[in-house]
């Protein structure tokens, strides 16, 4: 076995050891450096694995222990998993680096080592969710993921964040309860927990028509649990507060990565536990499609009415999650490819939006209301550009990252007339709504502050100029990298789509 096949295991265990060791450090600086090095190491390893697997068009299972398939735990990696691991570690690194000043300002010094502990465990649990080949391991790591995600919300110690945390935690635990019940039922009727073995049993059951009701129920419960955790539309009520009130790095990571970890698990289940055909024959995809379309529209409508900038971006996440679920609900390979591509596009865009919003807020006297942010982009040009690029990408303008998935969603829906009509209508409406709230925001940021507000500005302006924070090199560089990545994703979507296709084919 080539040595590089150890990468999934190494990256998970490395993050875990890092998480265990981090509370020992007393020095804040040291913690940050060690953490950045760890995440960078994971990125480098995943990149190597990705290149090797992609060029060989290869996938493998990794035995955790001395016992082969149905008896021991297993990891599984292919190009898609390696790509996701690479993207996740890269975005985590960029968000942590970009949000560093926010972390230092918002979080008490004694909490910072624990904050980085949580970040390490969060990354390790997301990697485990990506790589796992076992349903119960997925459950355990979902719980770790939940606790870590809640902790990074509450790290900023204001009343609102603690309230948001407890709502988030209760909803998430409800979700994991459903997931565990689903796994239990699935285990009862198949007798296995490993994905590949479960799949064999499920195919046999679907052919013989035995236990159809429990099969549908367990699939429904698992999808419901993961949908609650990834904030699909009717279950999104915890999201805006949790993402809107936490510190910038946390918001970026929660929106960009944590929601996606569950969705990738769902995609993996869709291919490795159930086949897409079985999913479609059990009508689960229809439900996902409807809820996805609802989420696309309702998320945008809610965002339209929001004046708090971070909450507006958070509601926009609800809409984007709707896109992803709609893609999966189409039930075609192209649809799932579009969903995977949209995971990448959203993961590259949303952290950038949060980081640049933070930059804009910093130069406007720490006010989050849209009115106060008027003209902010002129004071901090790179953040302004970052926000503009992110907004255009979310609207779906060509050349930006958010464009390609919409095209592919359209292509994926062509197989059935009903899907095609609904998809095109929903895409058009959602694009319009996105434009309705992003464009005025961007225009307001770039326009000159109004004359009548001069006095207000002067009152605040004195404070502003005195307190005009030094430009953080970290923030600027990470926004810069995000902008470049966004353009790469938007222009070179062909090759990336090719990679995703290869990965999905190998996943089956």
């Amino acid at each position, binding site marked *: 076995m080539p040595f590089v096949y150890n990468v999934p295991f190494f990256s998970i265990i490395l993050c875990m050891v890092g998480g265990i060791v981090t509370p020992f450090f007393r020095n804040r600086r040291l913690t940050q450096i060690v953490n950045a090095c760890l995440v960078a190491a994971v990125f480098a390893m995943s990149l190597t694995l990705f290149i090797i697997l992609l060029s060989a068009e290869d996938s493998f299972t990794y035995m955790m222990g001395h016992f082969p398939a149905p008896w021991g735990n297993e990891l599984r990696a292919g190009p898609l998993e390696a790509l996701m691991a690479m993207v996740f570690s890269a975005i985590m690194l960029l968000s942590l680096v970009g949000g560093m000043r926010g972390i230092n300002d918002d979080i008490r010094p004694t909490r910072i080592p624990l904050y980085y502990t949580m970040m390490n465990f969060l990354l390790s649990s997301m990697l485990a969710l990506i790589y796992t080949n076992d349903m119960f391991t997925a459950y*355990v790591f979902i*719980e770790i993921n939940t606790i870590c995600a809640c902790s990074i919300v509450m790290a900023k110690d204001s*009343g*609102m964040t*603690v309230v948001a945390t*407890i709502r988030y935690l*209760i909803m998430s635990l409800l979700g994991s*309860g459903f997931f565990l019940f689903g796994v239990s039922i699935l285990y009862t009727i198949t007798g296995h927990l490993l994905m590949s073995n479960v799949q064999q049993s499920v195919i046999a059951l679907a052919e013989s028509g035995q236990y159809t009701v429990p099969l549908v129920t367990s699939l429904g419960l698992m999808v419901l649990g993961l949908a609650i955790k990834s904030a699909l539309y009717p279950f999104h009520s915890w999201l805006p507060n949790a993402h809107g009130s936490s510190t910038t790095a946390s918001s970026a990571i929660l929106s960009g990565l944590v929601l996606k970890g569950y969705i990738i698990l769902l995609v993996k289940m869709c291919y490795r536990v159930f086949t897409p055909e079985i999913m479609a024959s059990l009508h689960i995809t229809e439900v996902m499609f409807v809820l996805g379309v609802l989420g696309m529209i309702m998320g945008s409508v809610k965002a339209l009415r929001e004046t708090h900038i971070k909450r507006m971006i958070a509601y926009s996440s609800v809409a984007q999650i709707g896109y992803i679920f709609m893609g999966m609900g189409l039930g075609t390979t192209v649809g799932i490819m579009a969903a995977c591509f949209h995971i990448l596009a959203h993961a590259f865009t949303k952290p950038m939006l949060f980081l640049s919003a933070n930059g804009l807020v910093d130069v406007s006297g720490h006010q989050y209301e849209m009115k106060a942010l008027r003209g902010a982009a002129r004071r901090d040009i790179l953040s302004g550009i970052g926000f503009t690029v992110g907004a255009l990408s979310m609207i779906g303008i060509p050349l930006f990252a958010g464009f390609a998935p919409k095209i592919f969603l359209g292509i994926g829906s062509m197989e059935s007339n009903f899907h095609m009509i609904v998809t095109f209508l929903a895409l058009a409406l959602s694009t319009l709504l996105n434009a309705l709230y992003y464009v005025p925001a961007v225009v307001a940021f770039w326009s000159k502050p109004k004359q009548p507000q001069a006095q207000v500005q002067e009152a605040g302006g004195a404070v502003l100029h005195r307190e005009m924070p030094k430009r953080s090199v970290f923030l600027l560089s990470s926004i810069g990298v995000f902008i470049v990545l966004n353009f790469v994703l938007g222009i070179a979507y062909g090759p990336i789509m090719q990679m995703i296709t290869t990965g999905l084919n190998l996943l089956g």
Partner: protein
Amino acid sequence: MEVILSHYYDIASVILFGIGFFTLLLHRNLIKKIIGLNIMDTSIFLFLASKGYIFGRVAPIVSEGATNAELYINPVPSGLVLTGIVVSVSVSAFLLALAQRLYKKYKTINLDEIIVLAKKEEE
């Protein structure tokens, strides 16, 4: 009737799950919500643990020379539930800590009041 007699643990755990679920959704008191969550979790564990039992067999403490699988119950669900119990206790400790923190700040453990107070505070 026959179905109930052959599935009584399943039905009991669904009923308990329902009770826990309703408590979690409808009670506005945080401590009650937390206990409700615990009941929901234990009901799932009951469901899972009952899957391992086989009539007339004994606990899987394999004695020397009697390694016949016909003698013992299925050890897998027990192991899974063991994992689940520990997860559930750590989660409830975290929830309780959050509830105490909120009480310290708002002097109430009614979630609705807390939300209203927090919104007012933010404005």
